[in-house]
């Protein structure tokens, strides 16, 4: 059995999102396996980013259930919570994202995200960006500012931890030398990497990436693949990504969900989706080889 069936971290069921009369997503169900890299692909306007915005709470879904299981999937508790109108289980293992505002999803449900058009704090330095990401931890360490003002040792320790975590991720994304430069001064590819590092600094269980490879050159794409694998393998983080770059998608995804016009048309491992005639017809509309060409380029680049 696949991981997304046996132990899903995220389950989306019957998700529907309407804007006025427009149906952006129609009765969509899929799940994300714990420790998998899952990709959502589909043509422009298929509703991929809308799914993301529903999962991360920036949109409130019209209908449907979005649940995260931080430690272990537990269908029974999930049903109990749904019926009882609660947001999360007592042990904070199961959380219903469709009932939570965006910042709580990031804080309590530990879902971090990046944005299609990069949203860094441009006037703040690279390091400061990573510090802002650790806001809630630091807030606690500073006794909600009171302790911080008087410079209590607990805050100093918290700050050292934050610095350590920031340094670690800066080394992973190879930006340690630019830690004190304004984020807006970084080249485009570095900004994309920094946004991922910033998301990782929040300490997530699920990392949602909205087109992380957009605008990257082949070498940077390859580096991105390495980084995502590292995040999955070394940190055990589940990754959900939207991507147009088939090189990235086919190479690193454990699981691919294909959307078209707000509906799911295919769902499975990379090989399955690649050969699914529905995908080829509806989404790619071209020969099978076309799918593989960019993948090979990406691998060799």
């Amino acid at each position, binding site marked *: 059995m696949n991981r997304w069936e046996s132990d899903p971290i995220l389950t989306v069921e019957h998700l529907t999102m309407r804007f006025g009369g427009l149906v952006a997503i129609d009765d969509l169900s899929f799940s994300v396996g714990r420790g998998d890299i899952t990709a959502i692909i589909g043509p422009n306007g298929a509703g991929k980013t809308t799914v993301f915005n529903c999962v*991360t709470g920036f949109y409130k879904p019209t209908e449907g259930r979005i649940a995260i299981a931080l430690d272990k999937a537990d269908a029974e508790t999930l049903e109990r919570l749904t019926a009882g109108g609660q947001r999360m289980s007592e042990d904070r293992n199961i959380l219903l994202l469709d009932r939570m505002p*965006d910042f709580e999803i*990031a804080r309590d449900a530990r879902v971090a995200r990046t944005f299609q058009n990069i949203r860094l704090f441009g*006037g703040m330095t690279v390091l400061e960006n990573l510090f802002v990401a650790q806001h809630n931890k630091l807030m606690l360490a500073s006794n909600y500012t009171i302790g911080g003002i008087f410079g209590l040792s607990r805050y100093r320790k918290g700050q050292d931890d934050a610095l350590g975590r920031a340094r670690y991720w800066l080394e992973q994304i190879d930006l340690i030398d630019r830690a004190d430069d304004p984020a807006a001064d970084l080249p485009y590819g570095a900004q994309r990497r920094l946004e991922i590092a910033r998301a990782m600094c929040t300490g997530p269980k699920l990392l949602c990436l909205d087109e992380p490879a957009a605008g990257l050159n082949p070498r940077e794409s390859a580096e991105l693949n390495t980084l995502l694998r590292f995040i999955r393998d070394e940190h055990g983080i589940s990754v959900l990504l939207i991507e147009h770059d088939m090189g990235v998608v086919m190479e690193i995804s454990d699981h691919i969900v294909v959307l078209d016009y707000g509906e799911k048309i295919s769902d499975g491992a990379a090989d399955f989706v690649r050969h699914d005639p529905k995908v080829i017809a509806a989404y790619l509309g071209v020969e099978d080889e076309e799918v593989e060409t960019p993948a090979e380029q990406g691998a060799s*680049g």
Partner: protein
Amino acid sequence: MANTTGESALDTGAVGAEIEDERRAEAVRGEPPFTEHPASGDRLAAALKDAVIAGLIALALAGPMVGLRTETAIGGLSLSQHWLPVAVIVAVVFLGRLLLNLFVWRTGGRTKPITATSFRLLPSGEQLEKWRWPGLVAAIAFTIVMPFLPFADRYWMDQAIVVLTYCMLGWGLNVVVGLAGLLDLGYVAFYAVGAYSFALLATNFDLGFWVCLPMAGILAAGWGLILGFPVLRLRGDYLAIVTLAFGEIIRVVIINWYDFTNGPDGISGIPRPTLFGIPFERGDDGFAAVFGLEYSSIQRIIFLYYIILVLALVTNFVTLRLRRLPVGRAWEALREDEIACRSLGINTTNTKLTAFATGAMFGGFAGSFFATRQGFISPESFTAIESFIILAVVVLGGLGSQLGIVIAVIFLNTAFEVLRGLDEYRMLIVGLMMVLIMVWRPRGLVSTRRPSVTLSGRAKAVRGELVGEGSG
């Protein structure tokens, strides 16, 4: 091969925000490509024509408004004629424009926008960085010994107190506008709440300055929360106009709630601050008698000066400290990108509220100081123009810059004092100066931003144009 070219293309494309800004500015500056510019040969003719047009516009503006003055007379209004000032205005505009055309804007073709001309009058970020600590120590030392310097008579002490009060107000508002990026045009409301809380507590319950001061600050902060809560969903100019409306509501309520606030008559007899219970009065219990000094009214002024100095320094240091704490960093992040903040688990509502409350609290402290210094307050001291001036100080100084605010306050106060003899022309000139300075330096006098935390230990200032301006 393909990689290297690809990378360089990306790199040039990504120097980023700056180019994007320039492009945007360029685009909306908006002369369409087909506009023709005069060749340099007939520059004189073009300059003359331009100056004549400017003169005619000045005539249209000033002619009726200055030339024909309505006078109240029996049985209605009559007119008196003043054509000399009109002629002077028109001549000044004509000649000024002509000279500018000929000698300043001589770049030919397209004139450079005035904002692009770089003035080297102010030190750059790096120079500031070098002089930061020595400058700070010198400034604090100077402010401490100032009352005992030979020139420090009553007039100078009064000016120093005013400057420090406005610095404190500016620093307080800077938390809201400069750090959190929330445009607050009703800041004077908190100043008023602080002053009235102090005055009412002190006169009704017979409490001393040092008891009332923190209570006034807390009350102002409470009002900051109350007013802040409903408006936090608003952005930009909408937030500005709602805060302006709040400021006016508070003022109108103070004017009309006669039983509580004594309405337009104001509150008098507000107690003066004491030094551990020792009043600054003539008499046996007074400060002079206790310390065996000769009584002088300047002693009280000096004491007030030290109070506001301490309050202002506390405001400054707390603000600087907050900037380096998670809450301050969250304020700045909020100014840069609210959506990204939410994606990182930051409760933006609470963050905005803390900014509002912190700013309001400092405003409340300043208000209670104002009340105790004046001994009398009335709603007239808390008009919208006061909010505008405090905001102007923050923006002129450079958003987020504590030093810039000091420079702006000293500058504006000096301007006010120098122009004092000009009576009614004073505000006219101040208004025009606000326009000119903003056009000259839209980002304010000190526009760079110091990072709140560094890895290398050497904080390089962030260029002003990269810093966000907030959307709320």
